[in-house]
């Protein structure tokens, strides 16, 4: 199941905080699908530390699409 989350237009670190909040409730088999204004490098480091699988794509308009798998 995919859970959409759009954090475009928010001032840092609000996007980060929103994603962390959603991650806390994310279950195995669920995917958090996030739209951001830019590539969240620091978030990726935390996701890898915590064992979350993730991938991202940068769209033509600069929007970054990130998929995070629940544990």
């Amino acid at each position, binding site marked *: 199941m995919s859970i959409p989350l759009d954090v475009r237009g928010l001032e840092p670190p609000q996007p980060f905080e929103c994603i962390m909040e959603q991650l806390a409730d994310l279950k195995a088999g669920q995917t958090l699908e996030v739209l951001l204004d*830019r590539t969240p*490098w620091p978030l*990726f480091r935390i996701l890898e530390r915590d064992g979350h699988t993730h991938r991202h794509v*940068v769209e033509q308009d600069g929007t970054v699409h990130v998929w995070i798998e629940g544990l």
Partner: protein
Amino acid sequence: MKPGAALSYEATPAFSVPLRFFLTAPLFGMLAGLLLMMEPAALASRWTPAALSLTHLITVGFMLMVMTGALFQVLPVVAGAAIPGARYVSAVVHLTLTLGACLLSLGLLLMSPGMLLAAAIVSTLALGIFLIASILGLWATPIGPQATPRDLRLALVGLMVTLALGIALILILSRGQPWPLLELLRLHIGWAWLGGVGLLLAGTSWLVVPMFQITPNYPGILTRVWSPIAFVLLFVWSVCTLMGLSIPATVITALLMLLSALFPVTTLWVQAHSRRAKPDSIFRIIQFSMVNILVGLVVVAGIELTLLEGTHWPLVAGILIMHGGFVSFISGMLYKIVPFLAWLNLTQAGVRAPNVKKLLPEIAIKRQLLAHALLSLTLLVAAISGDPLLIRLSGMGLVVAFALLLSNLFKVFRQYGVQQKMHSGYKEIAE
């Protein structure tokens, strides 16, 4: 994950890595204020030893110090680039840059050939180590659609050229090398303003202004071409200046100034379209900075066209662009970057960090930025009037404004320590 992007995920360096630079930089600003209090002649002409010393206390001691520190930790955050061995490299760079800035300012003040030579050696060491480390970090960065990593690379080359020209000037002053002093000096200033600081500020702004000010992105065409064109024009202008081709050099100077003006004009435009409901003091100081740069460029144009004659006009242009423009912008960015990095480091360490606004309250920022902005105007009046009392008062103002900046940055550091200590306390209780 994109292929080749793995290097980007190395751990963010410790908070102490950039912080030591940020906490040292205001001390040089305070030293500049003290110098102005003791030597009002610093605002009599830009060629007096005191004026040269003052300029380098601000440019090398404050601006370069902050920019170097910022690059150490901002690069991993905004560009995904990690500087290898950041903790050790930053300690050496910080020490040598501090020593270099002290020797350079004192050497210029006393016009001591020995001290200037020592400054050249130590500064080369500092920037050389930093440049190699950051080039390694940036080269490992995957090239994305963002122009920032490319522009930061160009800015680093610009800083190297500025340093090389500075060393050439030191060799003329200390060893009497028969090189063209005025031409090299012109190139040194041009490369420092646009090739080093200008490119760094613009390259950072493409990312940081839309990110923190909730503005639309800068137009893609501008971010794609602004820095490369500025860099190529600077190079051609340098060749023309050294070869004595005055007409092409003048035409390129005009083009460079128009290009330079495009950056503040566009920044003001994107700010005018911000989605932010209520502008904060940092939003205002960035606007103030851009207006200062624009007015400074108009004054430089007036000087170039010999419409503005008199020794105080170059000083006015310098105050507008460096203090009103660059120092304002850098201060504003420090207030966004330092609390954010503290928050990020706490979060990455598993500490439940408070809101960034609690790490440094808006009122403290507002007070300092207001003092800084008022001081910019006082400095201008002091430079134009040449009144020694007003110059000394401006010096005192510089000391106060930079002391407030230091105190604000220290508040974040203290909060960071408190949060870490509380977290360790909870962990001990839980165990």
